[in-house]
């Protein structure tokens, strides 16, 4: 920072961006829940919420009011400090990784370039992994603090599952990093610009999913396991472990776990589009402000596609048994990811020779 007024402006801009992103994210989480209930209901040949507001669109608001006013039951034998800490920790960590995600290109505001991103770390991807690693604690602590059998088992199983799939999550992305040559998320997307041409005609956009299909599958599978969603949602399945690690939580603290799960889903989908599907790149036309907004639109469209796929899987697939889940993570995904890294590095070395 050269002058303190520059520093002040930087801080103000960062705060403004954070506020906008948080508000948008919280609203979208509420409506992702609505979309999920509607889509899963249609898959199961029923209507879903339709009473509150047209097509049940005010249902999330009704649910939020319910969570706020419901009685907060705290069992006697819980460990007070950790019981209160766990939901807030989950909630904070879930919204922390949004700080490095670029939603669109840059636009110029009175000569200053402003990026649709709160901050661009040059170890941005590692920052997201760091936040994911810390997310394991919230579930383990939630399960432990409830001082009861089922939450403890749910918490331990879930944390073991998360640390197992964290490994394949990281390894699946290494292929993309070798191609991009940078850990900055903006840099990875900018490396995917342009098209491949055959005979002068642009055939395919230069998205990393076409260069790293196996890497994409590994990443997405590990990401679904990380967010504890179907088919890897054993730790919170109702038929298996009562409520899993959030059994002893009620009203607002339960709502925080709930929101954190959907925020994690959003983060993972954003990363999948940035790393493999070209982020905000898409057909751009018109004057500069329109281009900037169009980039955000393409990004949101791709993220919504991934979220829809998540919801589709929830309505369709059965869940893995715990030992199948762990065997799949360690004995299949990790060797496959290592093989992917090996093959990618050989191809890169051969092509640059």
């Amino acid at each position: 920072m050269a002058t303190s007024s520059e520093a002040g402006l930087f801080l103000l801009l960062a705060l403004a961006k954070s506020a906008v992103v948080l508000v948008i994210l919280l609203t979208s989480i509420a409506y992702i829940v609505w979309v999920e209930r509607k889509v899963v209901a249609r898959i199961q040949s029923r209507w879903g919420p339709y009473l509150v507001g047209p097509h049940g669109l005010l249902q999330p608001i009704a649910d939020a009011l319910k969570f706020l006013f419901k009685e907060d039951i705290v069992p006697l034998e819980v460990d007070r400090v950790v019981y209160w800490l766990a939901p807030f920790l989950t909630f904070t960590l879930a919204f922390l990784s949004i700080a490095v995600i670029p939603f669109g290109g840059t636009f110029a505001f009175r000569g200053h370039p402003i990026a649709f991103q709160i901050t661009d770390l040059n170890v941005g991807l590692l920052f997201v992994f760091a936040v994911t690693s810390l997310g394991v604690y919230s579930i383990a602590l939630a399960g432990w603090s409830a001082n009861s059998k089922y939450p403890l088992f749910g918490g331990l199983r879930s944390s073991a599952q998360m640390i197992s799939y964290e490994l394949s999550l990281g390894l699946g992305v290494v292929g993309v990093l070798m191609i991009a040559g940078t850990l900055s998320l903006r840099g990875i997307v900018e490396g995917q610009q342009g098209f491949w041409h055959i005979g002068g005609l642009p055939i395919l956009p230069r998205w990393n999913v076409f260069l790293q299909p196996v890497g994409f599958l590994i990443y997405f599978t590990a990401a679904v396991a990380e967010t504890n969603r179907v088919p890897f949602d054993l730790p919170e399945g109702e038929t298996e472990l009562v409520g899993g690690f959030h059994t002893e939580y009620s009203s607002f603290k339960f709502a925080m776990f709930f929101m954190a799960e959907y925020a994690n889903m959003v983060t993972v989908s954003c990363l999948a589009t940035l790393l493999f599907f070209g982020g905000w790149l898409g057909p751009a036309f018109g004057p500069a402000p329109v281009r900037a907004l169009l980039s955000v639109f393409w990004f949101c469209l791709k993220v919504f596609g991934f979220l829809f796929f998540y919801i589709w899987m929830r309505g369709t697939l059965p869940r893995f048994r715990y030992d199948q889940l762990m065997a799949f993570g360690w004995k299949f995904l990790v060797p496959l990811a290592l093989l992917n890294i090996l093959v990618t590095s050989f191809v890169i070395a051969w092509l640059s020779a």
Partner: protein
Amino acid sequence: MTALFYICATVAVLAALNVIVQRTPVYSALSLIVVLCSLAVVYLLLGAEFMAVIQVIVYAGAIMVLFVLVIMLLNAGREVPSHRSRLAHWVGAPLVAAFLIEVLIVVWRQFPAATTSPAPALDAGPTAIGHLLFRNYVLPFEVTSILILVAVLGAVVLAKKEF
């Protein structure tokens, strides 16, 4: 920037104090995680961004998870106060304080604030560290990979149930 260092240093020292004072192991583990994360911020302030994220991912996100899971599995409850001599209490605390002050004085004399100024900012990003790690230090790197393999095998064998 400098204010942030002093804030993080205070947080780290208070959390470290909490580690050694708490009777419940889970609270000690959580305080140690706070120490690790504040040290990661200090590394960021030192310009070592790669070390900062590695500290969080590996130390706070993997090693401490191991600690927390073991504490939960072994159900380590509150610690009972020791039955040792009270004399050790009354003599020990001043001795620790004396040790601390002595080492601080040595450090202060050795590196006076006026004469030590940092070298020009070096690029400590992943590329630079990768260059060093895989060229100059490739032998220790490979040796540590064998070390980790041995540690995994050892841990599995030691913690297995005897039937």
